[in-house]
Each structure stands twice: as C-alpha cells, then as structure tokens.
C-alpha cells in the first residue's frame, strides 16, 4: 500500500490498517434501531393501503370516476399549494386574541389545550419558546385552534391544529422527514409553512422566513421521548 503515496507520512501504512480495524469494529457494533424499522414498515403499510384505495377507485361506478376525474383535473390545473393549508397559515398570521393556555403540570411536555384530543406541546423547558396566546378560527368549515409561541428575541411561530379529517397535503411542498415525522414544507407570502399529521389531525406550523427552517422543523417534530402524542 505504501507504493500509493510513499511521500505522505511514514506511518500511513500503520494508520490505514488501524483505521480499517476501527471502522470494521464500529460497523460490527452498529445496527439499525428498531424504531427505524417500525417507521419504514409503517410507511410501507401506508403506501400499500393507498394503492389498494386507488385500485378500488378504478372499480367504482363510472359516474363517480368521472366526477373524481373532474375534481382531480381542477385541482391539478389550479396550481399552487393546497388552499386549506395556506388558508390555515394565513388565518394564523393574524395573531392571538385570547390568553395563552396553561402548562399542564401532570404532562410536562404539553399545554392544557387540545383539538380532538390532540394536545399542543409545551416547549418552554426544551426550547426557549413560550406560549403567548391563542386564536380560535375556522378554515373551510373546519374549526381550528392556533397557539402562538414566542422566543426571547421576539420571533413568533403559529401552531395550528385543524379539527376533523386531515387536509390534503399542499401541492408543491418539499418533503422532509425529521425525527421520524414526515413533514411538508413550503414558503408562501413571506412565511414558511410546515404541515404534518398527529393522530390523524393536520397540524400547521408557520412563521416568518426569518425563523430558519431547521428550527421550525425541529419544533414541529419534537416528541419529547414520546410524551407528545403523534
């Protein structure tokens, strides 16, 4: 091996061999965690059920298929992100109208406010973001609750949970998985919007573009070792 680059370092042969052994030991020690395998299997099951639903759709009555096709064409040609998610973020941008919900001492990672049993997280201990207010709203007939969090620098993020079935994922959003949570991210009207699901409910976290994406997604995907239900 020393013929490869004899001028570099007289110890290179020995170092390369030691490096090979160290790497082999690390590789032998390392296995994919069970949680990762479960996440992959859950993704696979979700895809399987999606394909089954699509196949059933093919067997549906012709009228229903035509109607669905028309809707699909309208949605596909309308362009831009999903109106519901964007509308949710726009509503959230208006700011709070009610006092912040209280911290739940019985569940230190949560606030005493939820939507359909999906509680808002309490970030005050893990991050310097405190809940500062609430706005109740409605997007396309769906009740929403937005909790506003603020950091010591005065930056503010809006965390909305939409009641009822999940909203369609926004078109044109980038996909990114953080902490095992599939997120969709888009920028719209000067705000960065992250949307994902918790227990079948759509969550939307939005903030001015000055809040870095990595910070926003870390907040969205924070599970506090399972204490924040997903």
């Amino acid at each position, binding site marked *: 091996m020393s013929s490869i680059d004899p001028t570099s370092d007289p110890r290179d042969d020995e170092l390369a061999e030691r490096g090979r052994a160290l790497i082999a030991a690390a590789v032998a020690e*390392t296995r994919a965690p069970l949680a990762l395998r479960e996440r992959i299997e859950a993704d696979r099951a979700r895809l399987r059920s999606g394909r089954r639903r699509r196949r059933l759709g093919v067997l549906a009555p012709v009228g229903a298929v035509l109607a669905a096709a028309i809707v699909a064409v309208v949605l596909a040609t309308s362009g831009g992100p999903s109106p519901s998610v964007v509308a949710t973020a726009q509503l959230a941008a208006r700011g709070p109208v009610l006092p912040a919900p209280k911290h739940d001492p019985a569940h230190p990672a949560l606030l005493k406010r939820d939507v359909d049993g999906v509680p808002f997280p309490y970030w005050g201990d893990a991050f310097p973001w405190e809940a500062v207010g609430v706005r109740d709203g409605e997007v396309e007939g769906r009740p929403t609750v937005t909790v506003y969090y603020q*950091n010591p620098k005065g930056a503010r993020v809006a965390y909305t949970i939409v009641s009822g079935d999940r909203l369609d994922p926004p078109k044109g959003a980038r996909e990114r998985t953080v902490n095992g949570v599939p997120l969709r991210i888009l920028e719209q009207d000067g705000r960065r919007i992250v949307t994902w699901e918790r227990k079948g409910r759509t969550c939307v976290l939005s903030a001015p*573009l000055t809040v870095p994406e990595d910070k926003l997604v870390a907040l969205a995907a924070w599970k506090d070792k399972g204490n924040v239900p997903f």
Partner: protein
Amino acid sequence: MRSDDARPLDPQALGDHVDRLFRAAWALCGRREDAEDLVQDTFARVLAKPRFLRNDDDLGYLLRVLRNTFVSRHRSAMRRPQSVPMPEDLEPIDPRSSSRPGAAYAAREIFAHIAALPDEFRDALVAVDVAGLSYAEAAKLLGTKEATITSRLFRARARVARGMEPDRQGVP
C-alpha cells in the same frame, strides 16, 4: 423507459438492507438521528412507485438512492437562506441507551470522523468499509476506477485513524 430484461425490485426484500443503509447514512451524515431520517426518506422514495432493475444489485441501487437523497438534502440546506441566526439551541437532547455504551461511543466518534472527510474519501469509505461493496461495485457506484477507490480508501482510513488518536479526539 423500462428495458425488457428489467426485473421488479421486491419491496419485501428491502428490509434485508436496512442495517447497511443505516450505517452508510450515519457515516454520510455524522449524526445518528439524521441517519435515521435519511434512511426513512430513502425507503419512502424507493417505495413510492414500482422500481425495475437491470441487475441483481439491490444494495448498490439503494445506496445510490441514499447518496442522491443525502446530496439533494445537503444542497437544499445550503441553498436555504441563512437568515437571522438565533441564539437558542433547539436541538432536543435524545440520549440513547446501549448495552455497550463504550463501544457505542466509539462508533459515534468514528462515524463523525468519516462524515467530516472530504467527499471523495468519505464516499469511497462508505461504499467499501461501511456498506460492504467490493472495490469494483464501489467504483461503478461512484463512477470512478478501482485504482482510485483503492487510493482513496487508503488515505481515508489513515485520516480516520489519525483523527481517533488520543491527542486529536474531537478534531475530525
């Protein structure tokens, strides 16, 4: 377009490669948590639609997707505006237990050193020493010659060993 000799990639068989992909992802990212997300994203990409391969090299294909996913994530992270840095640290602490904490710590250090290598050294090391490809397979994956892989491996291994020397710990 799918050629006549292409065969479908069997989703059920992909689970056999999770360990190797996870190690490769960890060595690319340098952080265990990022590696988990990268592997999950890779599988999501592969499973999103039926895939057809012209050879039996499932692992090589998966590694290519893994590397492409890593590169595109890295590039989009670089493109993102680095706006208003905030002083708070949002990194949640997620300590993981291990039956052999000492070995787990050493593995973490080694993967961090690999991730910090120059790209061409890191990629050769990940392909051969971490993922277990042959020199020929690694050369094909990385679009280079076997001799180049040999040379890069030699240098990369030496750099990792040098980085792990007691007086250089924490200096990848």
